[in-house]
């Protein structure tokens, strides 16, 4: 018999409320909790965030833990790991889920090493192994060429979850459940890393993560001229423009627009891949799109194995005719 119980999510917030990753973890975490017959808890770390954190109760959480401490006012790994190590030993969750976001990917592994617990990262599916009540975690490896199902021993079972790999929880009518303040005033935290400045760059036009439609270009675009054409298509469809690693490495499109394993992971309604062969490195970032449309002059390109619609041909011939026809159809 173990004292480690319940599923805990490390919650993230945006100005507007719950971050999308937290809603995704709430839906994934609820299934695990139901399976275990245990509760779903969310831990929020910050300062003056109680009102926004409480919202998680309306998305299926049984309990929300929240800190209120100026020292935790903004994310800094060194400081947050120290606090979390204390909180986890006190709250003893069976399962601890982070998003594989800039914060979660920094926090999860460090916490694991600190607590002497193995961590898996960037998983896309989670299940409870009934006998041991541990996690079976599915994770793409080799840039998505293969899927591994991973396990570890000991509690808490810690993993980070890839954004967009779980459908977000819906708001329910009720918000039963309690909000528990976590008093950290007595914990000594002496951060070795000091944050001097934080700059967020507002993306022009539609943000990749929020776009319903994404037009994306790869090696086959041949240069930045091609991306001007993609911009036109993006504008017409009110979508965002992305690129593969090759396109970014060649300077055809800024790094912030990179889609793939090492860029942004997106799951739009429609993903139009132009001159993209479909290297696993790239497909990792867009495979969860509802519809993939491929335009490529090479009929044998692997992208056609994962696309739903396609045209074989040079984009220079395809795009103008495609755009004109769309305009004509209104």
């Amino acid at each position, binding site marked *: 018999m173990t004292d480690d119980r319940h599923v805990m999510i490390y919650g993230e917030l945006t100005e507007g409320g719950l971050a999308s990753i937290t809603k995704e973890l709430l839906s994934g975490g609820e299934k695990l909790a139901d399976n275990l017959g245990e509760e779903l808890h969310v831990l929020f770390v910050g300062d003056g965030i109680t009102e926004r954190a409480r919202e998680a109760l309306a998305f299926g959480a049984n309990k929300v833990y929240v800190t209120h401490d100026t020292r935790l006012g903004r994310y800094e790994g060194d400081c947050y790991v120290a606090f979390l190590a204390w909180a986890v030993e006190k709250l003893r969750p069976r399962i601890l889920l982070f998003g594989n976001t800039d914060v979660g990917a920094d926090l999860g592994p*460090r916490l694991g*090493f600190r607590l002497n617990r193995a961590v898996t990262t960037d998983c896309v599916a989670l299940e409870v192994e009934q006998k041991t009540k541990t996690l079976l975690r599915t994770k793409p490896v080799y840039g998505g060429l293969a899927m591994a199902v991973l396990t570890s021993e000991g509690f808490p079972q810690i993993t980070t979850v890839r954004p967009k790999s779980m459908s977000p929880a819906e708001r329910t009518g009720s918000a039963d459940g309690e909000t528990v303040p976590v008093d950290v005033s007595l914990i000594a935290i002496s951060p070795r890393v*000091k944050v*001097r400045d934080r700059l*967020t760059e507002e993306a022009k036009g539609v943000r990749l993560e929020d776009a319903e439609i994404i037009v994306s270009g790869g090696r086959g675009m041949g240069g930045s001229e091609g991306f001007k054409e993609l911009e036109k298509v993006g504008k017409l469809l009110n979508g965002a423009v992305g690129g593969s690693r090759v396109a970014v490495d060649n300077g055809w499109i800024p790094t912030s627009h990179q889609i793939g394993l090492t860029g942004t992971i997106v799951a739009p309604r429609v993903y139009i891949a132009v001159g993209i062969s479909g290297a696993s490195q790239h497909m990792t970032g867009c495979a969860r799109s509802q519809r993939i449309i491929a335009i490529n002059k090479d*009929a044998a390109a692997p992208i056609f194995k994962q696309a739903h619609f396609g045209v074989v041909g040079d984009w220079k011939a*395809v795009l103008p005719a495609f755009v004109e*026809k769309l305009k004509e159809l209104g």
Partner: protein
Amino acid sequence: MNIIVCIKEIPDPEATIDSFRLDQENKALVSSSKVLRVVNPFDEQAVEAALRIKDKTGAKVTVLSLGNNLDRVVVKKPLHMGADELILLEDGAFVGGDSWSTAHALAAAIRKIGEYDLILCGRQAADTNAGQTGMGISEFLGLPCVTVARKIDITGNTATVERVINNGYETVEVALPTVITVSNELGQARYPSIKNIAKSNSIKPVIWQPSDIGLKPEACGMLARRIRTASLYLPVFEATCEVVVGETIQEAAQNLAVRLRLERIL
């Protein structure tokens, strides 16, 4: 100033699925001999970050790698780029590890090296894609860790680091010694130079086995894993692509537009 850079030799991440074979028994993906071995791209950028500091301060750059039968052409690349020394943890016992056992062995080696101000790693390896080793090393050594750096400046005993965050970056300061993991936003790594290739011919890699770093073989690699692979499989793609055709490419493109409108996709 002493910088240690940890690098991993991996199969070329741009390889496609047809050049791999699934080894069910060992639950591993085996690459065919056609697939090149390369330095993990993020680790190459960590080497670049170290060399940029060396350019300014004259730091000594030691490269550390782990595995067995490591390809000398691959692991010597950082020397060809301008690094000064190469230490290989090379033994059958190091094979098949996970983030835990790898970080543990690298930390033991770094302890043995003894003199260091800065430890650099790539943010993640492009094969296992775990992104934990650098953080593990920092925890084992009790050092701070700054992840996903795109720029590193050293002034005296302080590193000023720009690290990538969602939609931007932040600038942090940390006292040395520290671990920093490097991201692709750092920019293109330099090419090997003829001068450095010639110079590195005289540099013999130092080879350490588990006993050299104070570890028993069973505390390394496969035997020290904490993450088990229950199964490994190749993903099945459900999509069947409808390739839209026409008399000409232009007509095919127009037909695609019509098709997508009819399906209410666009």
